[in-house]
């Protein structure tokens, strides 16, 4: 039922990714979310900025902005391209407790959203490196919370 939808979305996707690539000054277009880099492209990617998320390593392919804020295109160790909105999710922690722990990070964020009824706080950073650093530190400081750096490798599609 949905081939037109896919075509439409793919066009948008290409435009979107193209814009990101342009804003980052890259000579070539970043592959779409979910695609896999070739071995040679992966070698090139590994020369770029490295992000550590727990045991995982990611490399920054480009940075840019969408209408909602900063975005970073990344590639993981398997060579799969993903996207981060530079968000840090702090879940399973009452908001008032979270506020006490995140004060020192606020200067580097572009937004902080408190979802009180879900006990979730979302920090959005200007730079993904700052987000990753915050995740590492907050995991130690808030052992009972679930703290993540969401990276999207697959976009929800109509079924």
């Amino acid at each position, binding site marked *: 039922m949905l081939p037109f939808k896919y075509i439409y979305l793919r066009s948008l996707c290409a435009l979107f990714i193209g814009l990101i690539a342009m804003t980052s000054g890259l000579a070539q277009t970043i592959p779409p979310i979910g695609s896999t880099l070739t071995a040679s492209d992966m070698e090139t990617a590994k020369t770029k900025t490295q992000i550590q998320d727990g*045991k995982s390593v990611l490399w920054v392919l480009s940075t840019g902005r969408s209408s909602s804020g900063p975005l970073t295109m990344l590639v993981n*160790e398997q060579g799969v391209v993903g996207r981060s*909105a530079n968000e840090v999710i702090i879940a399973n922690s009452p908001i008032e407790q979270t506020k006490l722990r995140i004060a020192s990070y606020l200067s580097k964020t572009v937004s902080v959203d408190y979802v009180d009824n879900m006990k979730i706080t979302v920090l959005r950073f200007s730079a993904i490196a700052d987000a990753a650093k915050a995740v590492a530190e907050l995991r130690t400081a808030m052992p009972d919370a*679930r703290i993540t750096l969401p990276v999207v490798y697959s976009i929800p599609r*109509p079924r």
Partner: protein
Amino acid sequence: MRHIAYLALVIFTATLISACSGGGDSTSTTTSTSSCTETGPYACQTGATEPLYTYQWALNAPQSFFATYTEVSDGTTDLKVEAVHKQGIKGQGVNVLVLDDGVDINHEDLKANVDHTMTWNFQTNTSDPTPTGIGDAHGTNAAGIIAAAQNGIGVMGIAPRVTLGAAGDMDGEGITALQKILAFGGAPWSINAHVINYSLGINPKEPPEYSNNSYEQGSQPQANLRGGKGVIIVQSAGNEYVSINGQPNRVCPKVDNRLQIVSCENPANDTDLLFPLRLSIAALNPKGYRADYSSAGSVNWVTGLSGQSSASGKYGEEGSAEENQGPAIFSTDLIGCEKGYARNPDVPGTPGALANRNLTEFSTGGTSINLAKNSNCNYSHMNGTSASAPTVTGVVALMLSANPNLTWRDVRHILATTSRQVDPNYGDAYQRNEQITLADYRFTGNTSTTLSEGASTARLDYGWQTNAAGYKYSNWYGFGLVNAAAAVAAAKATTSYKPAALTLPEFTIFKGADGKEEDIPVHYGKVTKLKEFTVSGTDRVDALQVGLSSVGSAGDNNIQSICIGSVGIYVRSPSGTVSVLSVPYNSYWNTHKKLYEKSSYALSSYAFYGERASGTWEIFAVSGTPATASEACTTSPIGTVSLGYRIIALP
């Protein structure tokens, strides 16, 4: 036994109600003759008041237009919903939120039910969720299946008196984690949702990351929404049984060179569906069989109705279900013939539209049928598990309307215990009941159900099984096709409620004597019993989940981390029920190199629902031969994996 007695009582009650109200047979009347509490011009009337109702086979198959087209319809497969409508139960008091590409809230058949405090559009950051794209009719179709009003025009939703909310652009390229959190109960416009319909999903190209730290697990507060009773999230299982659109380099399993013996995609690869509040919905066609595309796996909860992958003729009546043809689900569409699924064939930007969109004459602007029945193109039809999920959402809304005190656990338990077995012999068809050789994936002719350590053969599908708690479950259909009459009867009969609070235990990781994650060998081409573990206590099982990772290092070919595409994971419960959580030669077979140390992958099964958790569980790797194109998997007949498990218990 207690569960079986309860089930029998529910079915008996439902049968009585159905009989008293005259529902479910070809002699049924439009209006109930007794105990009607609904008021208004359509009080206790079925959808027969709506001009397009005859095409809504899912609501009344025996009297539908399609009943006589025996190649595409059996004339009996429907939701058993008329008996409920005749009681005047139509979703009153229930808030349904449709998270999709948007909903045309000005539609003549929806606008009366729309609550503008429950709408949002992530693309425009306004409260108008009406989509702007020519083909963005997906959410509008889903909304109509649930909530189209009973007003003497168009179609009727399964719960035509619900309060409807909607969010647009949930499938947008830039959707963020925050936006998803807001949509699923974290925003003022979503916090009052009682049921959420999410006819979207993902098909990750690589095995998705899932661990104790996954932020999906931060969704536990959803169990506290709806005044502490929990929101119910109904999601499509996926349309990837046959193939995976848009990702041609993922291949589907072939047995003896034959496709479609097992599902190409595993719904569990959408990690949202590992979360117990999410109900994964499979799809049935009007002939009473799985729609050809409906993804199968052990996270499917129940089955709704949709249609086949191709609709043609005037309304979808042409062709044969055997050829994947037949009617879809009729519903609301974007207003006008310039956009939506029903539109003029010459709309700019839609090259090949007639061929690609499975259009019937009804949905093709300007045809004689269109001009006679759908001249403004305000109605169309949709298939896919995108359509089957809203049919279940509608039934859930009816249940909550009948008894708003039900917790999310009550709702899913009632669905599991009142849904009915369909296609009972599918597990025996097309040699599906045969053991296959693991080394080269060929049928053996042996239909033994034995699963044993070291064997070189195993089954891929156990079909319908009755577990030790008395529940029938299958990977194709979950607990079966929803039955609105039985579900609502059970809802009304419920006076004792299950707790809504949800605590997800951490995965228990198997560790060696050195305290580190154990390096467990997996033999390719054979069955390997990875581990067994013993549970004590009185818990009963809701879900059993298995977590996999590797102790090897990425790029270290001396440590042979398993190729997850070659390895199926099976679990046998203490009661002897075997569940196939993933199959060997699955859709990651030709693309995935190996399971990296730094990634964690999880699977889940509801096949053990209600069984006692106590006793010894066994986890098996049922392994094929890695693809020759794979790296790092082929130099050794043995791979390794780190393993964990958790049992999510019933309260």
